[in-house]
């Protein structure tokens, strides 16, 4: 049992926590995109969720309330996007980018009074016996509830999309909104609900960062994770299970490159930081080679404006 083997447990635990915010944001965006809407404002919604969750937790001392408000705040920000793109038919790409810019500014404004304030820790799970297991105990049984909630969301989203009638309708709207409309489905309402869900998930992702991962508020605390989440959805070719794999890959490489440096192994850290993005590009190239495989999963109406009377 060398020192290197003893590192496996902590590395696994760190990887799971690093993957959690990506998982939430990417799953939310996946549902949004499956309904045919491209919301590039994930980063902005995460920031608003992060600051609102932090503010509430700092005031009330309850991280549960913090996460709930973060989900609401994320959904509220997403509602703005929904009104602009679905009701007023604004361009989705431009509106999504604007939403990110708006989120950066708004979160900084709200967060002004909350810089440098400490908040209580989110309690971690502790199952006597299991949590104390060697190597994997802490990683598998010693995390906080949000990590497990994130993991549970993967089968839940998969089941919703592929196992329920509502999921089928949502996918139908994303594939061909005109046909879905002709069948009598309320395209705009369905998309709006999907957008709200995506916002709530982004809000939780942001709050996980500000309440749990690094319990503090700082401007721009998400540091680009919203964009990684967007890349993850494509990387996963719109499959919830692959989103989980992708989140672990991104999280794992982030953690691994820090360990590699600490151990003094001579690999440029920039190269390792680059790897997940390189993997995304490779996946994009691979799936682009086979048009049929993209068609299979990519929502055909993604990003297209829907006029009900057309």
């Amino acid at each position, binding site marked *: 049992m060398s020192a290197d083997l003893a590192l496996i447990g902590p590395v696994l635990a760190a990887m799971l926590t690093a993957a959690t915010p990506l998982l939430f944001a990417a799953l939310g965006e996946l549902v949004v995109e499956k309904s045919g809407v491209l919301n590039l404002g994930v980063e902005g919604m995460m920031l608003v969720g992060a600051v609102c969750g932090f503010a509430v937790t700092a005031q009330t001392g309850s991280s549960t309330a913090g996460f709930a408000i973060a989900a609401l705040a994320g959904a509220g920000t997403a509602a703005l996007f929904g009104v602009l793109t679905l009701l007023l038919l604004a361009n989705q790409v431009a509106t999504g980018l604007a939403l990110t*810019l708006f989120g950066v500014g708004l979160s900084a404004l709200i967060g002004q009074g909350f810089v*440098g304030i400490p908040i209580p820790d989110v309690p971690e799970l502790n199952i006597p016996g299991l949590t104390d297991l060697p190597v994997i105990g802490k990683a598998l049984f010693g995390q906080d509830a949000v990590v497990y909630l994130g993991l549970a969301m993967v089968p839940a989203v998969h089941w919703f999309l592929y196992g329920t009638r509502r999921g089928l309708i949502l996918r139908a709207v994303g594939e061909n909104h005109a046909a879905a409309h002709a069948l009598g489905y309320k395209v705009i309402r369905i998309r709006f609900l999907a957008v709200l869900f995506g916002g709530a998930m982004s809000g939780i992702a942001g709050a996980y960062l500000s309440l749990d991962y690094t319990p503090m508020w700082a401007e*721009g*605390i998400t540091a680009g994770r919203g964009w990684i989440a967007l890349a993850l959805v494509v990387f996963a070719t719109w499959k919830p299970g692959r989103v989980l794999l992708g989140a672990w890959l991104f999280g794992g490489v982030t953690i691994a490159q820090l360990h590699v440096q600490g151990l003094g192994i001579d690999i440029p*850290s*920039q190269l390792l930081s680059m790897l997940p993005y390189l993997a995304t590009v490779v996946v994009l190239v691979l799936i682009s080679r086979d048009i049929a495989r993209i068609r299979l999963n990519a929502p055909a109406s993604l990003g297209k404006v829907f006029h009900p009377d057309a």
Partner: protein
Amino acid sequence: MNRRTMGKTLAGLAAGAAIMALGVGAAGAQEKLKVGFVYVGPVSDHGYSYQHDQGRLAVEKELGDKVTTTFVENVPEGADAERVIEQLATSGHKLIFTTSFGFMNPTLKVAQRHPDVKFEHATGYKRAANVATYSARFYEGRTVIGQIAGKMTKSNIIGYIGSFPIPEVISGINAFTIAMREVNPKAEVRVVWVNSWYDPGKEAEAAKALIDQGADVLSLHTDSPAAIQVAQERGLYVFGQSSDMTRFGPKAHLTAIVDDWRNYYVTRVKAALDGSWKSQDTWGGFKDKMLFLAPYNPSLSPEIVAAAEKTRTDIMEGKRHSFQGPVKDQSGKVVIAEGKQATDEQILKMDWYVEGVQGKVPK
């Protein structure tokens, strides 16, 4: 080589808004000297930009009847910076402090167009008749905390979180390591680069990775207090960076190297007022009050505090130098000979690790 460029692309909007706000403050007070400050981060960062703003407030307090000050925060390094500096120069500011490395070229460009305006650029190396430069010898503080770290570690592994492998950071690592090995030859430093000045998430991950590898004392050269929180949670020790970060980890935070621009700003504004201002290069340390140490943690033993204070005063009085020869690099080659000290140029261009640092400098 200071200061971040990342994540600031969006801040241009904020800068634009700030420019509009400037017009309001510019009215009235014709006879007072107008002094402008340009910050790369938000004043609320509780770190680098915050400390510069403390300097501005000191100027207001001391010379408030003779000067008015204006600041623009969140200014991205690049084209936006030039607009902001130009706006300050054309709106009657006669002395302008640009406080980040990336403002170097914009500052010089604007300075050329406004020979009657005086400029002060922090951490840069290009000067002109109306552009002075200033920076602090941050490495002097590293010598003191390195010594404390050498005495506090039990595992003999010190974790060091670096931002970018630039001379300013590397000379800090080296000064830290030299002082650490002097009191504890068995201790070694492990460095993790996060390639960012400010990414709390990544800094926390780096701290956890180093702790998992056995580090029991952390030092950082990044700007967020994330690593302080991690150390507090794990019950280990850490040194703050740029400003006093005690409240993020009252037990873990041993002390911090704090930038202090108050004295320098007041002196330079006074010089501008009485006409003695000249373009010059200032590189000050403890002696020049450009940095100081945050209060020592009460848990530090009196012996350790006394030794740290002695090191600090010795540096102030010139009895001790952070890079006193013989200094060996990782291969054991003597780079700074016995009896010699590193020259300023050697420190400003440092791109190698001393003995006791693990790993290689990223190229």
